[in-house]
């Protein structure tokens, strides 16, 4: 009788960094964002895309649910469970903390307003509009660097605000966490984002 095949495959181990983009366009129902063959966003389909630069230790992708089990008196184990929340986020420590126009202005949704004129650029702090953005982390697959893994959140915002460190020793950084929000009236199975891989 043949044995069940094992799934040891070093080609599927992640050993590369990715590009993180904000300001992406949202794909239509049942679709994925448009990329160029080098893995960068199609500039025409994503006219407002911005890359957020270096990080101190790369990016972390998380997606999980919280649930509430249903217990009844007659059974010792839960008989069902209720889905409470879906939490999806892309998090990192950004290193380019002096880049106000290219990085920091994308981190201040709800409390910061970017502006620039001759000789300065600024972020005014106060109550501001909540701005959501489509974001994606894009990295080449280990097996074929012309194919890409994409972690795309359709509607996200940085939940970590500004927390710049200024210091002589070590690298100053700003922790960020772009949390995914649901787009109402989109298909329920595809309302938050899409993690996908080109094959």
């Amino acid at each position, binding site marked *: 009788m043949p044995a069940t095949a094992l799934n040891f495959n070093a080609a599927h181990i992640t050993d*590369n*960094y*990715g*590009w993180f983009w904000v*300001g*992406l*366009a*949202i*794909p*239509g*129902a*049942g*679709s*994925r*964002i*448009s990329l*160029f*063959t*080098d*893995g*960068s*966003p*199609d*500039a*025409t*389909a*994503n*006219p*407002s*895309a*911005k*890359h957020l630069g270096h990080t101190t230790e790369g990016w972390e992708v998380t997606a999980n649910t919280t649930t509430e089990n249903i217990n009844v008196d007659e059974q010792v184990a839960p008989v069902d469970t209720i889905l409470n929340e879906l939490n999806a986020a892309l998090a990192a420590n950004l290193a380019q903390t002096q880049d106000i126009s290219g990085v920091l202005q994308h981190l201040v949704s709800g409390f910061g307003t970017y502006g620039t004129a001759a000789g300065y650029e600024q972020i005014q702090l106060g109550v501001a509009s909540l*701005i*959501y*953005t*489509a974001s994606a982390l*894009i*990295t*080449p697959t280990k097996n074929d*660097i*012309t194919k*890409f893994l994409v972690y795309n959140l*359709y*509607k996200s915002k940085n939940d970590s605000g500004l927390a710049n460190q200024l210091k002589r020793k070590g690298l100053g950084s700003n922790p960020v966490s772009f949390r995914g929000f649901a*787009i*109402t*009236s*989109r*298909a329920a199975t595809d*309302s938050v984002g899409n993690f996908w891989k080109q094959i």
Partner: protein
Amino acid sequence: MAEAKGPQNLTDPEVSSDFARSKKLAKEKGTAPGIDPETGERAAITYRQLYNETEGAEDGKVAERMFRDIARAGGYGDVELNQALDLRSLPRSVEDRKKAMDKGVDMKGEPLDLYGKHKLQQEIQHQDNLVNAVGEALERLKKG
């Protein structure tokens, strides 16, 4: 041998990627955001672009109605007005499904049985309807 592409060879994607090259070309040709600088095709739609095209009619309400119309037609959902819609993604989703059909597999890579084939045909039809609905919304936009 062709040069390998991807993040590992590009230190700054806003300078040395296809994205950067396309942006530069659009700037040189003066094409509006979302319009392909080489083909003139509309690849993305934004409320701001619609506002410009409708000259801010009714304090932007016309542009907003158009934006919502296209977003709903293409199943993008009730997106924020500051976000863009990727128009190229929808026709590609039809092609992806047709390729799967030609290969005899469903969208999970499983071999098609009759049930799977009919389901995939329905999906292709549904995606095709979305493409057409967006196309019609864009036609209405052209006609003003």
